[in-house]
């Protein structure tokens, strides 16, 4: 079972290290990376300052395993990685990182979009939007 959940934000350094690890894989010609960044949304004059993520990890790991398997069956990929933050992630910080690699560029785009949408729709991850005024509301993905 691959480690998906990262405590705290996904840093630019973490992303750089992931990219560097793929530079010894000479069969790769194309990478596609999706990053979800916490946006300062405004809801009735309250501004989001951070999102506090929790998850049902045991179920999430099984769901993500299935998503990963399906992506490998559907697309011609060399490798793929999914990371999601747990804990409080401030606006401007990255909380979601999908990394797809393939021999040719044509194979990466749709796979990335599939993975992002499947995680949003199927993974039991919960987000509490913390506003600047210390109130909060629970985030709901459109796909629910």
């Amino acid at each position: 079972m691959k480690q998906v959940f990262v405590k705290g934000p996904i840093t630019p350094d973490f992303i750089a290290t992931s990219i560097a690890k793929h530079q010894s894989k000479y069969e790769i010609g194309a990478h596609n990376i999706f990053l979800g960044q916490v946006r300062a949304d405004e809801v009735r004059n309250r501004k989001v300052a951070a999102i506090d993520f929790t998850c049902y990890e045991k179920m999430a790991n099984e769901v993500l395993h299935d998503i990963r398997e399906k992506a490998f069956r559907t697309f011609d990929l060399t490798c793929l990685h999914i990371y999601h933050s747990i804990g409080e992630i401030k606006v401007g910080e990255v909380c979601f990182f999908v990394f797809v690699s393939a021999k040719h560029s044509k194979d990466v785009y749709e796979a990335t979009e599939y993975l992002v949408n499947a995680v949003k729709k199927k993974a039991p991850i919960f987000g509490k939007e913390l506003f600047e005024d210390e109130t909060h509301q629970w985030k709901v993905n459109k796909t629910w």
Partner: protein
Amino acid sequence: MATIRYFGIVAEVTQRNEEYIEIENMNVSEVWNLLYAKYDLSTLNARVALNQRLVDLNSSITVNNNDELALLPPFAGG
């Protein structure tokens, strides 16, 4: 004893992350109704996972002791 787990806004409403309940000849639908009455879950649009798999709220699958039932609010990953 079956384990009942609560997440996100559901845990906020139930004011706990988990509890253990004695199950005897109950199916998913019956456990759901029991918890729905115990806490007011009406506005939460929750789903149920039995042993980490989503099941229908009206499911007649039997819940056994040692099973884990989770009440999940809308997902918000990504």
